[in-house]
C-alpha cells in the first residue's frame, strides 16, 4: 500500500498527453489539486482581529500546526469552475441511469430551500419559534401519506438505505413486541434486489434468505410461500422491481407474508413509476421508503445528500423512530424522546433532511395531483418508447412485455461481437451521453437498465434512440475500434481501477517530509 500517497505531478500528466504544452485540450483544462496550487499561508476570507482577550482553552491548544492551503476568491472560483466542467450532469443531457431517476431538478426548489425561514432555522430553536419548519414537515408528510395510502410516516431517515434501515428496525421492534424477537430473524430478499437490502438486513442481525425471480422477471406467490417459515420476519421486495417490472403478484405475496406472521418491506426506489396510479398501502405494504432525491426531484449533488422518509402501516406505526410531530390545538409540537411510547429509538440527530423536504414539497405543489400522475405516465411512456424502438437491435430479457419506468436489455445481442456491455456504455460517452446503469440487476447477464424519466422531450428521446441504434448496428457490423478505445472524447479515458484498489492513494501528501 502506498502509505506516502504521493501523487503524480501534474506536469508529468501534461507531458504524457504529448499534444499541447499545458496538457489542456481547448476548453478541457487540466487542474492541479488545491494542495499543489494553493499556498499554505494564504487565505481567501477576511476576518477581523478580535479585541484582546484572555483565552480559556486550558491545556488543550493544538500542538501541531495545520497544513491546509488557502485560495483567494478568484483562485477558488477558477478551481471549482474548472473542475465542474469535467462532470456530466442532468442539466447538460439525458442521464438514463436505471434505478436512479435522474429527472430535472427545478430551480424554484433551490430558491425555496434558501428562504431564511427554512435555511436559517436551528434544529434546537424553541419550538415556538420554529412553527413554520414543523408546518412544512407536516405538509410534506400529509402529501406523502396520501400518495402511499399508508398510516404514518417517519421523516428523519437521511437517505434511501437509511430509510430501509428505519423500516426494518420498525419491523424488528414489532416482532420483539410480539415476543418473537429470538425466533424470527430471517429476511427474504429477491436475488434481483438492490445490494442495500441484504446489507440492511445484516445490520440488524437478520440473516438473508434469497428468493429467486421467475423467468418472467417477477417473484411469484408460490416462490414466496415456499420460502416462508416461522423464522421469517420480513420480505424486502422492490416494486416496481429492479427489472423495471411491476410485481403482478404483489397482493398475493403480501397476503401470504402476513398469513405467515411476517411483514412486507417495500423498497420504494422506483416509486416514480406509480405515483397517482396505485398506492402501496392498498397493495399490503407495511413499510416503504421514498427517495425524495429520485421521485421528488431533489438534486443528487454528485452523490447526496438524499432523504428517505419511510411510510408505515398501522401495524408498524407505533414503533416509528423519534422525532415526530404532533398537532395540539393550533400549535405543532415535537416529540423527541421515546419515553411513554413504543418507538424503537432514534435514527439521527435532529429531525431529518429539512433542505430536501422543502425542495420535495415545492416539487409536489408545482405538479399537483394532475401533474404527478402525468409525470408517472410520461416516465413509463418514455421508457416503453425506448424499449419499443430498440427491441429489434438489442435483446430484452423478458421479451416484448411492456415495462414500467425503465427499459431493461441484456447482452445476448452482443454475443458474436466480442464486445461487452461496458464497451457499449463507454461508446455512449463519446456520443455525448451518460451511460445507462450497467450490470445491474445482477440476475440479468450484462444488464443495461435505461431510465429516461419524464423530463425528456420527444426530440431528445428520438436522438438518444437513433444514437443507440447506430451504435448497436456498428457493434454488429464488427466496428470494434469504436468501442474498445472508447471513450476518446471525454476529459479522461478508461481508468486503471485495479491500480486504484491494489495501491490505494486516498489523499494527497506533501512531497517534502513534514
Amino acid at each position, binding site marked *: 500500500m502506498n502509505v506516502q500517497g504521493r*501523487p503524480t505531478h501534474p506536469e508529468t500528466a501534461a507531458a504524457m498527453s504529448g499534444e499541447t504544452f499545458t496538457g489542456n485540450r481547448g476548453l478541457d483544462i487540466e487542474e492541479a489539486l488545491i494542495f499543489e496550487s494553493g499556498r499554505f499561508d494564504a487565505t*481567501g476570507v477576511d476576518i477581523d482581529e478580535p479585541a484582546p*482577550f484572555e483565552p480559556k482553552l486550558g491545556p488543550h491548544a*493544538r500542538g*501541531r*500546526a*495545520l497544513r491546509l492551503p*488557502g485560495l483567494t*476568491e478568484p483562485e*477558488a472560483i477558477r478551481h471549482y*469552475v474548472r*473542475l*465542474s466542467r469535467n462532470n456530466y*450532469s442532468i442539466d447538460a443531457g439525458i442521464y438514463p441511469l436505471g434505478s436512479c431517476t435522474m429527472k430535472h431538478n*427545478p430551480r*424554484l426548489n*433551490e430558491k425555496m430551500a*434558501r428562504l431564511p*425561514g427554512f435555511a*436559517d432555522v*436551528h434544529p434546537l*430553536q424553541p419550538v415556538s419559534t420554529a412553527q413554520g419548519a414543523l408546518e412544512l414537515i407536516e*405538509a410534506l408528510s400529509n402529501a406523502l401519506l*396520501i400518495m402511499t395510502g399508508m398510516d404514518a410516516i417517519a421523516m428523519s431517515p*437521511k437517505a434511501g*438505505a437509511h430509510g430501509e434501515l428505519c423500516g426494518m428496525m420498525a419491523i424488528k421492534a414489532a416482532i420483539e413486541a410480539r415476543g418473537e424477537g429470538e425466533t424470527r430473524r430471517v429476511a427474504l430478499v429477491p436475488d434481483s434486489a*438492490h*445490494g442495500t437490502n441484504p446489507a440492511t*438486513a445484516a445490520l440488524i442481525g437478520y440473516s438473508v434468505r434469497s428468493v429467486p425471480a421467475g423467468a418472467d422477471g417477477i417473484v411469484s406467490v408460490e416462490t414466496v410461500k415456499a420460502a416462508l417459515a416461522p423464522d421469517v420476519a420480513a420480505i424486502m421486495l422492490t416494486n416496481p422491481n429492479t427489472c423495471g417490472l411491476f410485481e403482478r403478484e404483489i397482493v398475493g405475496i403480501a397476503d401470504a407474508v402476513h398469513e405467515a406472521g411476517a411483514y412486507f418491506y417495500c423498497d420504494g426506489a422506483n416509486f416514480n413509476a406509480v405515483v397517482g*396510479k*396505485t*398506492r402501496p398501502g392498498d397493495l399490503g405494504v407495511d413499510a416503504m421508503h421514498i427517495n425524495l432525491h429520485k421521485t421528488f426531484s431533489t438534486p443528487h*449533488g*454528485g452523490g447526496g*445528500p438524499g432523504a428517505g422518509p419511510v411510510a408505515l402501516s398501522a401495524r408498524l406505526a407505533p414503533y416509528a423512530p423519534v422525532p415526530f410531530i404532533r398537532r395540539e390545538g393550533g400549535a405543532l409540537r415535537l416529540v423527541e*424522546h421515546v*419515553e411513554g411510547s413504543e418507538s424503537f429509538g432514534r435514527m439521527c440527530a*435532529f429531525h431529518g433532511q*429539512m*433542505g430536501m423536504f422543502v425542495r420535495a414539497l415545492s416539487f409536489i*405543489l408545482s405538479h399537483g395531483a*394532475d*401533474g*404527478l400522475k402525468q409525470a408517472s405516465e*410520461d416516465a413509463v*411512456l*418514455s421508457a*416503453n418508447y425506448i424499449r*419499443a424502438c430498440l427491441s429489434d437491435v438489442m435483446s430484452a430479457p423478458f421479451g416484448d412485455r*411492456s415495462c414500467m419506468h425503465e427499459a431493461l436489455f441484456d447482452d445476448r445481442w452482443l454475443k458474436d461481437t466480442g464486445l461487452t456491455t461496458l464497451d457499449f456504455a463507454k461508446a455512449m460517452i463519446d456520443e455525448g451521453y*451518460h451511460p445507462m446503469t450497467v450490470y445491474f440487476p445482477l440476475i440479468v447477464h450484462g444488464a443495461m437498465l435505461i431510465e429516461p424519466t419524464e423530463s425528456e422531450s420527444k426530440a431528445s428521446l428520438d436522438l438518444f434512440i437513433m444514437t443507440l441504434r447506430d451504435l448497436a448496428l456498428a457493434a454488429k457490423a464488427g466496428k470494434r475500434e469504436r468501442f474498445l478505445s472508447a471513450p476518446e472524447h471525454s476529459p*479522461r*479515458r*478508461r*481508468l486503471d481501477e485495479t*491500480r486504484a484498489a491494489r495501491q*490505494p492513494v*486516498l*489523499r*494527497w501528501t506533501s512531497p517534502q517530509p513534514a
Partner: protein
Amino acid sequence: MRYLPLDESEREAMLTRIGVPDIEALFADIPADKRLHGLLDIPLAKSEMAVERAMSAIAGRSVAAGSVPFFLGSGAYRRHIPATVDHLIQRSEFLTSYTPYQPEIAQGTLQVLFEFQTQVAELTGMQVANASMYDGSTACGEAMLMAHRLTRRNRAVISGGLHPQYADVCATLAHMAGDRISRLAPDLRASEDIIAAIDDETSCVIAQSPDFFGNPRDLAAIAEAAHAHGALLIAVFTDPVALGLLRSPGEMGADIAVGEGQGLGNALNFGGPYVGLFATRLKYVRQMPGRLAGETVDVEGRRSFVLTLSTREQHIRREKATSNICTNSGLCALAFSIHLSLLGAKGLEQLAKVNHANAVELAERLAAIPSVEVVNAHFFNEFVMRTPGPAAELIEALAKRGVIGGLPVSRLLPGAGLDDCIVVASTETNTGEDRAAYAEALADCLTMKP
C-alpha cells in the same frame, strides 16, 4: 405543466409506436382493483409564482436565526458562509450529477472528493478519511459498528459528554444489532472516570471534545487505557472550526475520528442535510464504511480519480458489506471543502480565534449577572450557564423578548437533574450588540420572576 416536455400529440405518436391503445395499457400489470382512476386528494398544479407565495408564507412562520441575537449551538452552528460557496455548489455540473460511477465524465466530483478526504484527514490529524457520511451522529454510529468489526467485541463505552442524540443513535443501532453499550451519566464538568469503565470486553470508547457541555477534553490518557485493553478510541467533535485551535483527534491517539462538518460551508437547515466527517488509521481502511475516492491513471497515463475499495460496499458485498450505506453527502461535502479551501489553515485559525473570543466575552457578560453561574473552567465557543429556576422556561421567556439564548439541557436530557442548565454558544456571527442584548434580556428575565 412547466416541467413536462411531452405534448398530447407526441404522447399519441409514442403510444402508437409502442403499439398500445392508451396509456392505461402500460399499467396493466397493476391489479385492476388496486389501480387509481381519479386524482390523488392533493391540490392541482400551481404556477411558479403561486408555489413561491405558499412556501414563503410557511417560511415566514419561523424565526430565522439571523434575524435575532442568536446563541444556540449544541451540534449545529450558525456560520457566515462566503457567497462563493453557495454560488459554486449551484453549478449544474456539481448540483445535478449522480454518484461518479462513470469516472471518465465525473472527474470534477472525484477530484473534489479526493481533496475533501485530504482536508478532513489533515484537520482531524488522521491518516485517511472517507468521502463523507450522512451527518455527525450517523458517522458516530457507523464508527461504533466499525470498532465492533475490528475488535470482534461488542461493548461500547459511551462518555457522558457525548451529544445525547449521538448517544441515542448508537444505543438504537446497538440494540438492533444485539450489541451492548455502557452509557455514562451526563457529565457537566468533564469529571467522569471513563478509564474505570474500560475492560477486556470493551470494543471502543466514544468520547467527544469539546464535549456536549463545551469542555475541551484530553482524550490521550483514554486512548492509552483503551489500547491497553485492546479497545479503540472514537473521538467525536460537533464543530470542525474548533479544530482550528484545539488538539486534533489524531494528536490524542484516536483510532477513528468522526464529526459533524455542517459548521463549514453549510447552513443550519433545521438539522439537515449536513455532512458527516469520518477518518481513521490507514491500517483500518478496509473496515471503513462509506465511499472513498482514490488516485489512479487513465490509459494515457494521466492522473485521474475513481471510487475505489468498493469491495467493502453493499452493491458488491451485499449482506457482507461494511455498511448498508449507498450515498455520501456529496454536495454538503463540496460546500465544506470550498469553505475550507477559502479559509486555509490561516483563515480557519483566525475564524476559531474569533469564535473563542466572542464566547469568552459572552461568558464574562453573563457571569456578571447576579445568580448566573458559568460552569466551565475551559471552553471553545460554547459553555454551560446555570440559572435559578427551570431553564426551559427561561429560554421561552428570552425568545419572547427576541433572543434565542441557547439550549435548555433538559430538552435533550430530561430527568438528568440538569434542568437549570443552558448550553450557550457564540460564533463569529454574533456582534457585541447581540451579546449585550442577551445579557440585558437575561438580567430582565431573572429579575422579573413571577
